[in-house]
């Protein structure tokens, strides 16, 4: 059982405005090289689950394993580092730092990790951008490129530290069909060529159907996987 990411009995409550049991005994795993999508209606808790898996949300009970290592209950500082090194994240809205150039945006997480020299990081960043066919945008300001391009820059940024898993919160939710197709193909290629594990929350049924596995959620429970 070679799970990259494994959740065991995750429970979460929202305390405000009143107690609400949003995730109920969620247990599942993502295997290495697997492309998994999570589907469900709005309010089914799928995004909440994703943010718990991404280590950003620590207010839950249950165990979370990344590369067979328990990461629940670790201090924030360590979680930041785990996130930095092992988890790439792509949001629905591109969320680039608008004052920085595309290249700087991509380089930032690697600079933070500081495992490689600056020259190496820059070469890697260029390489990622080329791979996503946006190498020519490297020195543009992040605020001055199109939405589809921004999303690809965000993917390049998520990949810069060669993470164990790439997570997406409706990464195509804000894109037209052409760009959605593009992003899907990028994900597919990443899985095929680099054996990357992917976990994507989506509303888009066409998108989900073409992934390896669909996890369906309703009312805070997994009803099908």
């Amino acid at each position, binding site marked *: 059982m070679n799970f990259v990411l494994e959740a065991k009995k995750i429970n979460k409550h929202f305390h405000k405005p009143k107690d609400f049991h949003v995730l109920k005994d969620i247990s599942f795993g993502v295997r290495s090289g697997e492309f998994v999508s999570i589907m469900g209606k709005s309010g089914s808790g799928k995004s909440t689950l994703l*943010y718990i898996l991404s280590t950003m949300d620590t207010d839950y009970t249950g165990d979370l394993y990344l590369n067979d290592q328990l990461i629940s209950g670790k201090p924030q*500082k360590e979680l*930041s*580092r785990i*996130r*930095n090194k092992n988890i790439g994240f792509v949001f629905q809205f591109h969320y680039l730092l608008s004052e920085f150039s595309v290249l700087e945006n991509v380089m930032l997480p690697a*600079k*933070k990790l*500081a495992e490689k020299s600056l020259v190496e990081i820059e070469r890697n960043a260029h390489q990622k951008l080329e791979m996503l066919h946006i190498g020519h945008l490297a020195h543009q300001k992040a605020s001055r490129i199109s939405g589809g391009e921004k999303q690809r820059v965000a993917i390049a940024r998520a990949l810069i530290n060669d993470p164990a898993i790439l997570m997406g919160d409706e990464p195509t939710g804000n894109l037209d069909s052409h760009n959605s197709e593009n992003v899907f193909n990028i994900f597919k290629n990443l899985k095929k060529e680099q054996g990357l594990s992917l976990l994507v929350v989506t509303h888009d049924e066409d998108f989900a159907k073409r992934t390896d596995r669909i996890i369906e959620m309703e009312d805070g429970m997994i009803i099908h996987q």
Partner: protein
Amino acid sequence: MTNWNVILGIAKTHLVTKMKSTATATLGVTFGIGAYITMVSFMTGLNTMLDDLVLNQTPHIHLYNEIRPSETQPISRYQDFENALNFVHSIKPKQNQEKIHNALPILNYLKKHPNVKGATPQLRAQIFYLSGSIELGGNLVGVDILEEARLSNMEDNIVQGSARALKSSNNGILLGSGLAKKMSLDIGDRVQVSTVSGDIFPLKIVGVYQSGIAEIDNVQSFANLNTVQRILGESANYVTDINIKLLDILKSEPMARSLEKQFNIKAVDINEANAQFETGTSVRNLITYAVSITLLIVAGFGIYNILNMLIYEKMKDIAILKATGFSGKDVQYIFMAQAMIIGLAGGILGLVIGFGLSHLIDNTPFETDALPTINTYPVNYNINSYLIGISFALLSTFIAGYLPSNKAKKIDPVKIIRGT
């Protein structure tokens, strides 16, 4: 694990892209510090000037014979009345000579004392200045003029003529400026003085003395010690006052007490003579610091506001930084770095502007009859005020940056990204 290059890089980008806010915040600090430096330099300069004006005229210890009644009246010594209650009306001061007994040996002793910079004999005589039929009351002080010039700033107060001219003249006088004006006399003229006993002496005006304090300048003149002794018909050991300048002014009080005991004489130290002056100085300093600190606090609030706004604008950026692996501490450092850069840049600029303004004030003409030696406004360049200025700039920006940056540290990225 903190990567300062990255953090400073982000801080720099924020500052540069928000140039207007950065400039506003920096200028806030600059004006605060600049105003502080200018105020402190000017106020302490003024204080020093006023201190000098009075304190330099005051010896550190002043020895003289005080006219006072005997502390124990003869009847108290009479043992038969030991348990009785005595009433003595109309007690008169003790019959006492005005001159200091054994003045010359005392002077010699003082001049050899290790803590004494110099001791000068003075002879104060009550005289009248005669101008036609008008008699003006006043003092004539006999001094060792060259020694006085060495020990005090007396030379600065001689607005015409010189100390040396008095020394080399046998019957010269340094006339008080108020007196010179009243009697329409000038250097080179002659003035007649009359002693209390009625003897009249002509003296030649070799200089005009202006202390800046009208009360003194209207009554007091200086002459050589032996000239005054001659006028009074006294011998060369007749001295009424001894002024002492010390090397260590802090020892003036205990030394005055010990001299009093040793020579059975009245000794007044500088703190006793100028107690009210010290109070004035400390109150002025207090006002200076109160105003300056207010300025700096206002500048601090400016920084606090601007950083707060910046953090509000950068919520999303903060969330992204945290999502991509920057810790809360890193984010806090980014904003702290911005505050400190603003503080340092604004502080240094403030020091420069403060220095420039003080220099400007220093060169502004300030002519007043009261202060003959002062031509421009007094300014005190003290390295300590500059150190305090820059420290306060850094301290206030640190506090102003800490609170908002602490907020940034605690921002929950999930909330921002999910938009709840």
